[in-house]
């Protein structure tokens, strides 16, 4: 995500890094690169202009006189201005103190409203809400089926009225139904519409009047071009949106739309969609996003993701095992499974410092099937073998390879990997004992 933009900016700043002092010309030249990078990332031209002007004013005025390493100073200013541009601090959604709260998703066709409705329901249920999904897209073929399928996958009720072609009526009935069922959160999925379609924009206003949403979120595709601004402004003008959900940020879109949308509407980005899985929705943090753009990896989000997936108690147990050298292949397997729960691996690794930059790793693809193979090998071992890998001799290796549909070489490789992991873990554990840097997540 934002990779290309980050890379470009970093290349620009590398030139600045070596300098002892910055002239106005240096700054101007660096900012020309910034301007190009931002435009190619689809940041709106007007936004770019303001951004560059703001950075320049601060950089030229200060860096030359005060800062010891002016290059760093410029990076810091760009970072700070980026945070400002992205909305400053994290914004939460508004939920009503009197249930049910009504949340409505709006946007152009194909921006990802229905999928985000499912993801939001899942996320907010995790926070203790009881969502009801409402299918108000009566136009697109099978839109209701799509939401109902998502509801089934998540085990969250879906309200629909297949015989009705009137979204206003459906929304009103859904709100009443939520009250009767004791659901405290109504999530309305609306039909995709062009912001210039007066009839459909009127329909949104009618829904608003009927159910008074506490939170209206505009869903915007991260790949949108310069027009994102027009769209955001039009929706905001018609129904006064409360925030933005930026989707498909797991692609290679540089997400310039994300930078622009906030800047022109003044409405914050609240969530970002980072994958097709239903758990791939994150709260938007401007500071973290700014760091990501500049290539300072986003460790905080990674840790949060890990915490969501890992069983804390078991992690502590594992750590104990590591120290006492009783870490077995079975624990290795549990760990693998927990890591897989955290989501697609390449996505995770992209956020580890250094990974995003390391050239040799850029084309590396993490194959989830490889993990499956490892699992298969371990599953083909007996319980004793898993606990005492030393006992696995040649003939056992042959049997395991046959049983798991792999080769003896695969089994060897796994055993070697395991041995290395164990050694590495031991080192970490010892470090911890001596009061050094503690390895919090003993990853493979």
């Amino acid at each position, binding site marked *: 995500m934002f990779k290309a933009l980050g890379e470009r900016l970093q290349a620009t700043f590398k030139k600045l890094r070596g300098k002892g002092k910055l002239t106005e010309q240096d700054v101007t030249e660096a900012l020309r690169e910034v301007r190009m990078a931002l435009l190619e990332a689809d940041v709106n031209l007007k936004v770019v202009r303001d951004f560059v002007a703001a950075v320049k004013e601060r950089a030229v005025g200060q860096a030359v006189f005060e800062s010891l390493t002016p290059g760093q100073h410029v990076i810091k200013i760009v970072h700070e201005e980026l945070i400002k541009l992205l909305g400053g601090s994290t914004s939460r959604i508004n939920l009503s103190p009197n249930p049910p709260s009504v949340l409505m998703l709006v946007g152009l066709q194909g921006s990802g409203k229905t999928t985000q409705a499912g993801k939001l329901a899942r996320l907010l249920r995790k926070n203790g809400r009881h969502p009801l999904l409402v299918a108000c897209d009566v136009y697109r073929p099978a839109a209701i089926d*799509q939401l109902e399928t998502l509801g089934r996958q998540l085990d969250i009720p879906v309200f629909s009225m297949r015989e009705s072609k009137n979204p206003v009526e459906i929304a009103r009935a859904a709100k009443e139904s939520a009250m009767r069922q004791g659901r405290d959160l109504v999530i309305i999925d609306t039909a995709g519409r062009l912001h210039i379609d007066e009839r459909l924009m009127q329909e949104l206003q009618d829904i608003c009047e009927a159910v008074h949403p506490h939170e209206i979120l505009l869903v915007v595709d991260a790949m949108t071009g310069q027009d994102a601004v027009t769209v955001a402004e039009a929706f905001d003008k018609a129904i006064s949106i409360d925030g933005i959900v930026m989707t498909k940020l797991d692609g290679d879109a540089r997400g310039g739309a994300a930078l622009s949308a906030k800047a022109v509407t003044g409405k914050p980005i609240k969530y970002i969609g980072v994958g097709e899985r239903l758990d791939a929705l994150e709260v938007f943090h401007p500071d973290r996003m700014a760091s990501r753009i500049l290539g300072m990896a986003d460790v905080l989000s990674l840790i949060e993701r890990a915490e969501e997936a890992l069983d804390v108690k078991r992690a502590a147990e594992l750590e104990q095992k590591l120290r006492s050298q009783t870490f077995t292949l079975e624990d290795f397997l549990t760990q693998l499974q927990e890591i897989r729960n955290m989501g697609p691996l390449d996505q995770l690794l992209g956020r580890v410092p250094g990974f995003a930059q390391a050239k040799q790793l850029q084309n590396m693809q993490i194959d989830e099937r490889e993990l499956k193979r490892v699992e298969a090998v371990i599953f083909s071992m007996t319980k004793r073998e898993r606990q005492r890998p030393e006992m696995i001799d040649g003939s056992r290796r042959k049997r395991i390879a046959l049983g798991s549909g792999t080769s003896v070489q695969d089994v060897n490789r796994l055993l070697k990997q395991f041995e290395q992991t164990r050694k590495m873990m031991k080192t970490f554990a010892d470090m911890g004992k001596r009061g050094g840097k503690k390895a919090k997540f003993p990853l493979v």
Partner: protein
Amino acid sequence: MGFMQKLADGLAKAREKFLVKLDALIVGRKIDESLYEELEELLILNDVGVTASARLLKHLRKLVSERKVQEGHFLRPLLQEIVSERLGKPEAIELQQGRLNVFLVVGVNGVGKTTSIGKLAQYYREQGLKIMCAAGDTFRAAAAQQLEIWAERAGVQVIAHAAGGDPAAVVYDALHSARAKGIDLLLVDTAGRLHNKTNLMQELGKVRRIIEREAPDALREILLVVDASTGQNALSQVREFAEIVPLTGIILTKLDGTAKGGIVLAIREEQQVPIKLIGVGEKASDLRPFDPQEFAAALLSSKTP
């Protein structure tokens, strides 16, 4: 209503916005550096992109000096000339009579693949061809149902498997069924996939290989669907998809919004894949062949057609 009119109507919002700005910029001014600079910004604002804009302007400067033009308002016809010249000739989709033809439709999520297939099915059905659709999107919830509803409207048959199945298997079945039934055109829908997801892209490669193997020489078109409101990322989409499957053309959808489709120019300048169809509305008849001359005229001509 002629398509020219339809196109002009579809582009009305975009055209209006673009032309008003363009005229405000050039009318009554002398052609100088600052005018070029502002023109470049206008192009960038229309998703033409930094690189393609620079090339267009270079071309424009050349014409201006050749024709010794000095007044700003002459720039509009010159731009129209440049745009239609650079967009090249229209490239039509042609089917072979009396045998099976296959279209594979690909693209990122939410660009309108299934909808485009629905429209194509209806269009060719009206031409009297026997059509079949293959529901290759086994991932997104209710994608197959969506295709089925479109197919029902068009009165064509759909081959679908249960959700979560292997798309290659759906295509395999569809190919055999299509051959047995003497189908003229098989439209293969695929799941939306972001072009940087290697595994999903490999899956697409597999679908194509199945088609080549089971029905040699039948694969007539591999069409990438691109949303007209996409920015410079569209270039990346074209590039990455083309690396996995040999794209034969692009379907540009949702041109009826306010996005001007400046991305048409960017794609043309930087990629070899021609735009073959454009969508300017919700009706089946709103998906039409792309004619560069018409497009340039609809966007830049002073006469409303």
